[in-house]
C-alpha cells in the first residue's frame, strides 16, 4: 500500500500525466462553455460572426424569461420530452427485462433470438429509425394507418405527426423504440446478478409474484434504475435529432424543445446571442438536476461511492 509520503513524491508525475487530459478539457469544454456564456450577453448575429456582437448585458435572458414561447419550449422539454419520455422508457425497459429473463422464453427456446431482436432497434441509426417511422405513420401511405383502417379500429387515417393529440405520443414512441434496448439490456444484466436463492427463499416464505417483484427484484434493480434514469434524462433533455427530424418543432410550437430552439434561434433567426442564452439555461437546468439527483437520490443508494 502506497504511503502518504510516496504519493506526495509521485505527485509531479501524476500531475504531468494528467496535463494532456486537462488541456483537452480546457480547450474543448471549459473554453467553449465560457465563450458561449460571453456570447449570451451580446447581440451577436449569424451574419456578423466576423465582426462580433455588442455587449447587451442580460437583455437576452430577460427576453427569454418573459417570453411565452420560451415557457412553452421549457414545458415541452421538461414534461413531454424528458419526464414522460424517460418514465416510459424506464417502465417499458423494466417490463422487457423481466420478460427476457422469464422462464417462458427459456421454455420455448426463444431467449437468444429475443435478445438478438432486442438489439435491432438499438443498432438502427436514429436517422434511419426516424425516416422509417415517418413512413409508417404517414396517413396515406403508412402501414400503421393501413392496419388500423383494415381492422376497422379507425374510420379515417390518423395524421400522427401533425394532430396535436397524437404528435407527442408518436414522437415518444419513435424515441422509445430506438433507445429502449439499452435500458432493457442494462436492467437485464442487473437482473441476472440477482441470486436465485433470494427469489426461492421469498417464494418459500409465501411471497407471490407481485410481492417478489416489489420486495426483491425492484430493490435489487434500484442502482441500475437510478443510473439509467440519470443517464436517460441527460440524453433526452439535450436531444435534438429526434424532434428536429421528426417534426422540426411543429406543428406551430407544439413540439419545439430547448435543443431545437437553440438551432432555430441561431441558424434560422440568426440570433447567436439569444441562442447562446438558451443554451446556458439548458446547461444550468441540467447541472441543477444532476446535483439535486445526486444529492437526494443517488447518494442515498451509493453511500460507498460518495
Amino acid at each position, binding site marked *: 500500500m502506497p504511503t502518504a509520503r510516496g504519493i506526495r513524491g509521485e505527485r509531479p508525475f501524476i500531475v504531468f500525466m494528467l496535463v494532456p487530459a486537462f488541456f483537452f478539457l480546457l480547450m474543448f469544454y471549459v473554453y467553449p462553455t465560457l465563450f458561449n456564456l460571453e456570447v449570451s450577453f451580446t447581440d451577436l448575429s449569424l451574419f456578423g*460572426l466576423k465582426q462580433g456582437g455588442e455587449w447587451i448585458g442580460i437583455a437576452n435572458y430577460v427576453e427569454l424569461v418573459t417570453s411565452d414561447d420560451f415557457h412553452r419550449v421549457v414545458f415541452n422539454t421538461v414534461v413531454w420530452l424528458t419526464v414522460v419520455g424517460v418514465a416510459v422508457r424506464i417502465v417499458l425497459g423494466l417490463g422487457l427485462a423481466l420478460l427476457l429473463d422469464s422462464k417462458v422464453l427459456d421454455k420455448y427456446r426463444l431467449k437468444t433470438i429475443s435478445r438478438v431482436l432486442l438489439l435491432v432497434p438499438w443498432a438502427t441509426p436514429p436517422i434511419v429509425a426516424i425516416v422509417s417511422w415517418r413512413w409508417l405513420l404517414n396517413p396515406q401511405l403508412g402501414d400503421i394507418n393501413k392496419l388500423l383502417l383494415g381492422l376497422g379500429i379507425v374510420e379515417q387515417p390518423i395524421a400522427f*405527426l401533425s394532430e*396535436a393529440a397524437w404528435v407527442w405520443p408518436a414522437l415518444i414512441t419513435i424515441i422509445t423504440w430506438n433507445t429502449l434496448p439499452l435500458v432493457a439490456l442494462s436492467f437485464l444484466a442487473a437482473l441476472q446478478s440477482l441470486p436465485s436463492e433470494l427469489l426461492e427463499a421469498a417464494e418459500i416464505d409465501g411471497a407471490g409474484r407481485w410481492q417478489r417483484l416489489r420486495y426483491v427484484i425492484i430493490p435489487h434493480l434500484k442502482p441500475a434504475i437510478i443510473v439509467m434514469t440519470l443517464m436517460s434524462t441527460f440524453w433526452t433533455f439535450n436531444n435534438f435529432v429526434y424532434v428536429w427530424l421528426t417534426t422540426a418543432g*411543429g406543428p*406551430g*410550437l407544439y413540439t419545439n424543445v430547448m435543443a431545437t430552439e437553440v438551432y432555430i434561434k441561431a*441558424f434560422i433567426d*440568426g440570433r447567436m446571442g439569444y441562442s447562446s442564452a438558451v443554451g446556458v439555461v439548458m446547461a444550468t437546468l441540467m447541472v441543477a438536476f444532476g446535483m439535486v439527483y445526486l444529492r437526494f437520490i443517488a447518494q442515498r443508494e451509493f453511500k460507498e461511492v460518495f
Partner: protein
Amino acid sequence: MPMTIRGLALAAMATTCFYGSVAAADTELTFRYAYDNVDEIQAGLDRFEELNPGITVTMERVAFKDARDQLIREGAAGAGPDVAHLAFVWIKDLGTAGACMPLNELIEEHGIGENGFQDFIATDLVLGDDEETIYGVPFATDTWGMIYNTEIMKEAGIEKVPETWEELLEASRKAKAIGKIGFGFAAGTSAANTIWFLANFNWWSDGGTLVESDGAGGYRLGISADQVASVIDYYKTYLDEDLTVPGALAMDAWNDPTILEQMIAGDMFATSVPVFTAVQIFDQWRERNPEKELPFTTAMTPHGSGKPTTHLGGQSLCVNANTDYPEESWKLMQWLNSWEFFENYNTGYYPAQQALLVKKPFPAEMTGFQKQFSEGARSWGPYARGPAAIGAMWNQTSRSFGAAFIGEKTSKEAADELLAFVQGLL
C-alpha cells in the same frame, strides 16, 4: 545499411517533390451544389475540366435548406467550397457576413453571361447594403404555378380552371364530393416550409405585402392583422374540411412524396409547385402511362382583388471569400452561366438571363407557368433588401400559421404575433 536507409529517404523525397510538383500544376476547385440533378451537373463539370486543362472540380453536396447556414459558418472559419450554389435571397446576407467575395472587379475584367451582368434578372438581390457591391450572380430562375387534373375537373363538374382563391376552395369542395383530394399543399410548420410561399401569394394577390419600402430608405409592414388572419383562415378551411392531402400539417416541402404521388396517381385535383417539380410530376406520369394523354393543365396561381402573383425565385452562385483561386472560380462561374451549360447539362432549369431565357421555350403543358413568369412573378425585393432576415420571417410565419392551424391560437392572435415579430425586425 545506413546507405540503404539514406537512399530510401532520398528516393522518397524525390518522389514527393515530383508528385508534389505535378499536383501543384492542377488547381483543385470545390463546387457545392444543392439540387438533385447531380448527374447532369457532374457531366457539365467534366466538360468544364476538358475545356480548362489544369483545373479540376470536385462537387460537394448539401441540402438546399442548409446551404446558407453552412457557408456562413465556414465563412467565419476561413473554410468552405470555392463556388457555392445558393438561393437568390441569401446572397446579401452572405456578402454582408463576409462569406461571399465582392465580384465587381472580376465582372468588369472578365465579364459574365451572354450579354453581361445587366442582362441577369433579379440583380438587386445580389447587391450588398451599399447597393453597389456585387456578391453573387443569379444562376437559374423559377416561379410557381398551378397544376390541375382535368379528369377530376370533368368528373366533379368543375367547368373551368379556378381563377380566384375562392373558386379554388369551391372547386376543392367539388373534388372532395367525388372522393378526391382538393388542393394539395404542405402545411407543415417547420422553419423552411411551403406555407410561407402560399401565404405570400395570397397576400400579394390581394394588395398586401409583409414588408414594403417606406419610400424614405426604410421598411415597414405592408399588411394588416385582419388580412393576415383571413389568409390563415383560408388555408385552415382546407385542413378543417379535409379538402387537402391528409397529414398536410406534417409535410414541409411542396415536393413531399405524398403530394407528388397523389397528383401522379390522379387522386388530387390541384397543387401549387415550382416549374421543376411540375416537370417531375409530368415526367413521372408519362413514365407510368406511356400510351395516354397527359390529364393535367397548368395555370397561373389564383388571385384575390389584385392580380395573380408569385415570387420570382431562383438560385444564385457566389465565390467564397476564402477561396485561394478567385480567377479559376470565376471561370467556373462563367461556364455555369453559359448557354452551352444550360442547353446540354442543366436542362431542367431556366437560366436567370434574359438572353438565354428566350432560347429556352416552355413545353406546351407548361403554358400556365410561362404566363406566371411573364405576367405575375415579382421579386422578393423589399423582403431581401430590408433589415429583416427572410429566414426569420419565414420561420415565424410558419409558427404562427401552425399555431392557428392546430387551434393553439386564434387566427387573429397568430396574425398579431407574426406582425409584431416582423415589426420588431424592421
